[in-house]
């Protein structure tokens, strides 16, 4: 090839390039959020590896607990909230781990990072999908738990459902962020619980206590619910503010 000649003629004969850059559409944060959540849920429904594993794992935890501690109504009154949330937490970790592990296929994460989409919207979309997944699994596990552990008749299920919503929000918000944070690490599957659990301690205390109160049908859950809501709002905001720090080119 004769590059020199080629260059000269090529540059002369070409149609002139557009003088100014055409105005580029800006990706809308809400549309990115929605599309990301929909895509992840669709992937989950199609592959179904996380959902099945979560259900089975959560069920196993509940069953093993009932062997470890004889499941009677008295026990449920005392530690039911803790048992329930340990099962939800372990099952939830599987979904949280998938949130960004999913993007390892065909290096999809590079595509997300190279796109001009707002990072916070990508994270929030993943959060929404993961939280939805966790809630679906919990919706199956909760009645199972009630049956296996002979939930007391005085239990107030409305309060428990509210606690589950707020608690799942807490775990999913931080878990999604830490899942993104771990994408660059070695042993990322091992890392996620190590990052999430210490930060989740106050949320876990609050969700367990609130669930306990509602199971026993006694009062005093307001403080825990408020604390949980505060935790949710604060850490969701922090994740949005610091989104740029984790979804970034290496």
């Amino acid at each position, binding site marked *: *090839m004769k*590059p*020199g000649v*080629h*260059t*000269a003629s*090529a*540059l002369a004969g*070409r*149609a*002139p*390039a*557009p*003088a100014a*850059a*055409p105005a*580029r*559409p*800006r*990706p*809308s944060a809400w*549309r*990115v959020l929605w*599309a*990301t959540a929909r*895509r992840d849920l*669709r*992937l989950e429904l*199609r*592959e179904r590896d996380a959902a099945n594993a979560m259900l089975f794992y959560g069920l196993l935890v509940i069953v093993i607990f009932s062997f470890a501690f004889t499941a009677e109504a008295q026990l449920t009154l005392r530690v039911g909230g803790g048992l329930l949330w340990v099962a939800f937490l372990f099952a939830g970790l599987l979904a949280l781990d998938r949130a960004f592990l*999913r993007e390892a*296929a*065909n*290096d*999809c994460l*590079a*595509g*997300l*990072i*190279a*796109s*001009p*989409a707002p990072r916070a919207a990508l994270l929030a979309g993943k959060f929404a999908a993961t939280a939805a997944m966790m809630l679906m699994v919990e919706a199956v596990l909760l009645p199972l738990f009630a049956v296996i552990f002979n939930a007391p008749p005085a239990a107030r299920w409305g309060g428990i459902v509210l606690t589950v919503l707020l608690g799942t929000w807490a775990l999913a918000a931080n878990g999604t962020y830490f899942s993104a944070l771990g994408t660059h690490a070695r042993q990322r599957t091992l890392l996620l619980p190590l990052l999430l659990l210490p930060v989740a301690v106050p949320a876990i205390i609050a969700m367990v206590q609130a669930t306990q109160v509602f199971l026993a049908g006694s009062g005093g859950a307001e403080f825990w619910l408020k604390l949980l809501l505060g935790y949710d709002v604060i850490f969701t905001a922090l994740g949005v503010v610091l989104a740029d720090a984790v979804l*970034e*080119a*290496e």
Partner: protein
Amino acid sequence: MQSPLPHLALRCPLPSGAALVACRGLTRFFGATAALRQLDLELPPGYLLALFGANGAGKSTLLRIVAGALRPSAGEVTVAGAPWGSAAARGAAGLLAHESWLHPSLTVAENLAYYATLYGLAAGAAAEALARARGERLARLRVGELSQGMRQKAALARCLLHTPRVLLLDEPFASLDRATVAELQATLQELRGAGLLLIASTHTEDLIAGLADGWARLERGRLVAASPGLAAEAEA
């Protein structure tokens, strides 16, 4: 002692003023290893540059940095006048990488529709891009089920989706059959005609030879040779 490598700067005579991709002193390290060493580069619209070099010469690193998928360690990079890392720079570049960046469990159309949202486009852009990449038939197939050539087309559609002004191609002809290569060559020519800047890395030099406006050779992270008229000895 080895003779030092020449240190070249790539400056194409610019027909319409501003360079579409400009790198000044671009350097990238992995640990203590230098993958790119103080690269100087200015390239105009409507140009096809062939990037030659052995494995590990820094071709992929350069393309990934310009695309915004990898961070420069030092130096300046601008894409379409926007600084590296800005949304404008990201939106102006498209990279056909080794991997397709398409999720294997989604269909081509689903993948492209998602990328359309990420770039702020209407869903119709997906079908349009697929047509431009000559891959209309692929829309409803899952990416995981595509052959090598089909996957390349789908990935090309993904890069063209947002009508980038700079198209970066990392070994675009690798493991494609003759017919697909010819098709891809035609597509590239079309795109150059439309005023895109194309940078294609390859080590199969003959496939791009008749096509490129100029070439440059990378060796151990440095520009060591380029077509006449393109290279200028870098000022010390």
